[in-house]
C-alpha cells in the first residue's frame, strides 16, 4: 500500500515538476513573430527601425555595455552612436576636433582644450569643462590602459576649457583622447548596473544586455537630427547565421561577415563598404632560436611568404599585403618603407649561399647537421592566423623550410619558453590611436611587453627616445618611418597583411561607412 501511495505521490510530484519546468521555460516568451520583421523599417507606423548584426560585441570581446571606463566597452559606446570623444580620427587617421574645437600645447606637459559650447548629454546636462573633467578623472581612476597611455597628472576646468597636465611629455595625448575610452559621459547621471551611460551621441541606449543593445534617437543631438528612430545592435557568434540574417532581411547591415560570404553580396541589393585598418597579421623572430638567429633564414622567410597569394586565395581578396607595420593610408605607412618582395628563387639562393643545403634530398635543407625546421607558433582566436600558417607552410616548403605549425589557444604560455618556438605570429592593431609610438613601444623595444622574440636594436631604442619627446607630427612620421625600416632591415619582424574591414548593408541603407580606425559605425548620417 505504502509503495502504491508513494508511487502516486511520486509521479504526481514529477508531473508537477515537469509542468513547472515548462512554465519556467515559457514565462515571458514573446508572442508570434513574422519572419524577417526584425530588420525592416516599419512603414505602417512611420517609424524607422534599423537592425545591425555584428560579431564585434559581446563578453568575448570584453566590450559589453557602454561604459567607456570599463575595459573595451568604450568601443561599443562610440561604435553604436552613444559616446563621442573630444577628438576623432579622419580617414587618414589624423586627429580632428569632435566635442572639442581646438587644442594648444602650452608646454611639454600642459595642453589646453577648448570645448564646443552647444553639446548636451542625453541626460539633459550641458557638457562643459567641469563635466569633462569629472569624466576624465573617473577614466584615469578606473580604466586599465588609459592612465599608462595618457599619463594625466591633473585636470583643471574653467567654463568651456580644460587644461590637462601630464606627468611627463606625452606628444600623442590628443591621439589617445580619440581612443573610445575617452568618450565623454555624464558622471552625474552615472553608469547603470548593465553598463548604460548618458553620452553625447546621436543615439541613446534604452536597454543593454550581453547580446543586444536597443537605442533610440537623441532628439537633442548637437550634430543634427538622427534619421532612424530605433536602432538594435545584435551580436552574432556564428558568421553563417549573420549572413543568413542579412539575406532573410532580419538585419539591415552586418559587421564581421566571413571572408567567403562577401561574394554573395556583390550585387545591387546590397552595399559593401570597405577599408583597410591597422590590424596587421605579423610574425616575430625568436632570437634565442638557433635557426632564427641566422639572419639569412629570417630574410629568406621574408622573401619566401607569398603574401599576395595568401590575401587573394585564403582571404578571398579581403586584405592588403603588408610591407611594414602601418597601412599605406598613414603618413608613416607602407608607401614610405621598402622590404623584400616574394621571391622564392632568391630566397633559395640566399639559403644556399649561407650553407643551408638539402644534402639528403628530402626537400628540407640542413646546415651542420641541423634541419631547417621552423616552429611556427600562433593561435586560432583570429581565423586569419591559422590560414596564414598554412600558406607560409606551403610556400616556405618550396624553398626548403619545414614549417611546423602550432596553432593553440595556449600560445601565451608557450611563448614564454624561448626554446619552444621559432616564429610567433599574431594579430595586432598597430595604430589604434593613429600614432606610431604605441606599436614600437609595445612590441619592438628592448623592454617591450610584446617583444617575445627578444629583438634588440640600439638604433631603434634611440629613435624611440626621440619619438617619445617629439611633438611635431611631421617629424614623428619621419621617425616612425625610420623605425619601421630598421626592424624590416633587421628582419626581426615580418608583416603579412592588413585586415580589410567591411560593413555589408542592404542597398537602402545610407550612411553606414567603414572607417580605418574601426570605431565609427552608427552615426547621425545613418538612414534606411
Amino acid at each position, binding site marked *: 500500500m505504502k509503495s502504491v501511495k*508513494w*508511487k502516486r505521490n*511520486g509521479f504526481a510530484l*514529477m508531473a508537477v515538476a515537469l509542468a513547472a*519546468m*515548462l512554465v*519556467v*521555460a*515559457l*514565462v*515571458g*516568451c*514573446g*508572442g*508570434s*513573430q*513574422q*519572419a*524577417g*520583421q526584425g*530588420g525592416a523599417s516599419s512603414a505602417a507606423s512611420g517609424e524607422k*527601425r534599423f*537592425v545591425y548584426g555584428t560579431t564585434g560585441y559581446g*563578453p*568575448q*570581446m*570584453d566590450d*559589453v555595455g557602454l561604459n567607456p571606463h570599463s*575595459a*573595451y566597452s568604450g568601443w561599443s559606446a562610440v561604435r553604436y552612436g552613444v559616446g563621442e570623444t573630444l577628438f576623432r580620427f579622419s580617414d587618414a587617421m589624423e586627429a580632428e576636433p569632435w566635442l572639442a574645437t581646438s587644442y594648444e600645447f602650452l608646454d611639454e606637459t600642459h595642453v589646453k582644450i577648448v570645448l564646443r559650447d552647444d553639446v548636451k548629454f542625453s541626460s539633459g546636462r550641458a557638457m562643459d569643462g567641469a563635466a569633462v573633467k569629472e569624466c576624465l578623472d573617473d577614466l584615469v581612476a578606473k580604466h*586599465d*590602459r588609459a592612465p*599608462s597611455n595618457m599619463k594625466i597628472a591633473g585636470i583643471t576646468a574653467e567654463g568651456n576649457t580644460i587644461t590637462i597636465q601630464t606627468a611627463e611629455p606625452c606628444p600623442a595625448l590628443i591621439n589617445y583622447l580619440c581612443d573610445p575610452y575617452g568618450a565623454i559621459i555624464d558622471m552625474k547621471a552615472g553608469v547603470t548596473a548593465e553598463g548604460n551611460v548618458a553620452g553625447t551621441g546621436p543615439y541613446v541606449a534604452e*536597454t543593454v544586455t550581453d*547580446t*543586444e543593445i*536597443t537605442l533610440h534617437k537623441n532628439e537633442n543631438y548637437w550634430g543634427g537630427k538622427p534619421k532612424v528612430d*530605433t536602432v538594435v545592435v*545584435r551580436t*552574432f*557568434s*556564428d558568421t*553563417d*547565421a549573420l549572413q*543568413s*540574417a542579412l539575406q*532573410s532581411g*532580419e538585419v539591415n547591415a552586418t559587421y564581421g561577415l566571413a571572408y567567403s560570404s562577401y561574394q554573395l553580396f556583390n550585387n545591387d541589393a546590397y552595399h559593401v563598404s570597405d577599408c583597410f585598418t591597422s590590424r596587421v597579421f605579423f610574425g616575430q623572430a625568436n632570437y634565442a632560436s638557433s635557426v632564427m638567429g641566422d639572419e639569412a633564414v629570417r630574410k629568406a622567410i621574408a622573401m619566401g611568404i607569398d603574401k599576395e597569394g595568401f590575401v587573394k586565395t585564403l582571404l578571398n581578396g579581403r586584405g592588403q599585403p603588408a610591407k611594414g607595420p602601418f597601412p599605406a593610408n598613414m603618413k608613416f605607412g607602407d608607401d614610405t618603407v621598402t622590404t623584400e618582395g616574394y621571391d622564392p628563387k632568391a630566397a633559395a639562393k640566399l639559403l644556399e649561399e649561407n650553407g643551408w643545403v638539402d644534402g639528403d634530398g628530402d626537400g628540407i635543407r640542413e646546415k651542420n647537421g641541423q634541419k631547417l625546421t621552423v616552429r611556427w607558433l600562433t593561435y586560432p*582566436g583570429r581565423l586569419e592566423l591559422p590560414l596564414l600558417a598554412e600558406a607560409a607552410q606551403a610556400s616556405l616548403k618550396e624553398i626548403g623550410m619545414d614549417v611546423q605549425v602550432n596553432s593553440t*589557444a*595556449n600560445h*601565451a*604560455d608557450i611563448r614564454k619558453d624561448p626554446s619552444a618556438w621559432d616564429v610567433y605570429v*599574431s594579430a*595586432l*592593431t598597430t595604430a589604434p590611436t593613429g600614432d606610431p609610438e*604605441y*606599436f614600437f613601444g*609595445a612590441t619592438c623595444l628592448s623592454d617591450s*611587453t610584446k617583444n617575445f622574440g627578444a629583438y634588440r636594436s640600439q638604433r631603434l631604442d634611440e629613435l624611440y627616445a626621440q619619438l617619445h619627446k617629439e611633438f611635431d607630427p611631421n617629424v614623428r612620421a619621419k621617425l616612425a618611418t625610420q623605425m619601421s625600416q630598421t626592424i624590416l632591415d633587421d628582419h626581426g619582424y615580418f608583416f603579412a597583411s592588413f585586415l580589410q574591414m567591411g560593413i555589408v548593408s542592404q542597398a537602402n541603407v545610407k550612411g553606414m561607412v567603414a572607417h580605418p580606425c574601426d570605431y565609427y559605425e552608427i552615426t547621425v548620417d545613418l538612414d534606411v
Partner: protein
Amino acid sequence: MRRYVIRRLLQLIPILIGITLLSFGMMHLAGGDAVTALLENQGVAVTQEVIDAKKHELGLDQPFMVQYLNWFRGLVTGNMGTSFVTGKDVFQTFASKLPATILLTLTSIIATVVVALPLGIVAATRQNKFVDYLIRVLSFVGNSLPNFFVALLLIFVFAIVLGWLPVISANIGKTGVAAISWAGLVLPTATLAIAMASKYTRQIRATVLDELSKPYVEGARARGVSESRILTKSVLKSVMIMLVTLLALSIGDLLGGTAIVETIFQWDGVGKLAVDSIVMRDYPMIQAYVVWMAIIYVMVNLAADLLYHYLDPRVRLGGDE
C-alpha cells in the same frame, strides 16, 4: 523507496567534488587564462603591469588548490562567484540562460516522441513494405546529417528562400528570455528533433519487431486478440522502457545545452554559454556548468530508474525491498 531516493541524492556530494576538481584541474592543465584570452581577442597591446593586476584581481596568481578551495568554499556557502569575463554574478547569469535551454529541451523532446513513436511502430508493423523502406531511408539520412548542416539547410529553405521563419530565434528589440518567439522556436526544435527522431524511430522499430516475435504475442494472436490491442496493451509497454532509457540520455544531453544549434540560431542558452566560457577560460562559469550537468544527470537517471519501476514493477530499485 524514499531511502533509495535519499541515498541517490547523497551520492551527488562525492560526484560534485570529484568532477568539479577534475574539471578545474583539466582547465588549468589546458593552459591559458581569461585575462590573456580577453586581451588577445582585442589585439591591442597592454603592459605587463595591467595583465598582472588583472590576474591578481581575479585570483589567477594563486596556486591551483587555493583557487579551487576558494571556489568550493563559495559554492557550499551559496556563492558561485562572479564571471571572469563579464564580472556578473555566475548563478544569476547561469539561471538567466536556463529557461531558454529547458524550453528547447521540452519542445524538441515532444517533437521527437510525437514523430518517432508512430513512425517506428508503422515501420515495424509494415516490415519490408514500401513504407518501412521509406521510413528507414529517411531515418538513416536524418541520423547521418550533422546538426549544423541540418540547421543551415533549414535556414536556407524556410528563412531565406520561403521567408516563413526567422533565422534569429529571439524577437529583435526584446531582451532576455522574454525575447524568445514561437516562430523562432520552430527551426531550432526541428534541427534537434530530426536527428533524435531518426535515431528513436529505428530503435522503436527494432524493439517492436522484437516484441512481436515473442511467444506471448503469438499466444495472444492465437487467442484472437486484435493486433491493435496487442500493440497498445502489450508491445507499447516494452517500447516505453526502451523509450525512457533513450529519453533519459537525450534530456541529459539537451539540458546541457546544444552549443551548435544555440550558436546558429542565436538561442541564448547554457550550451553556448558553456562553450564561450571554455574558450575564454572563465573558470567560475565553467564550474557552474559542471555542477549543473552533474545534478541533471543524477536527477534524470533517478527519474528514469523510478519510471522503470513504475512501468515494470518487476524492476527493483537498488536495495529497495
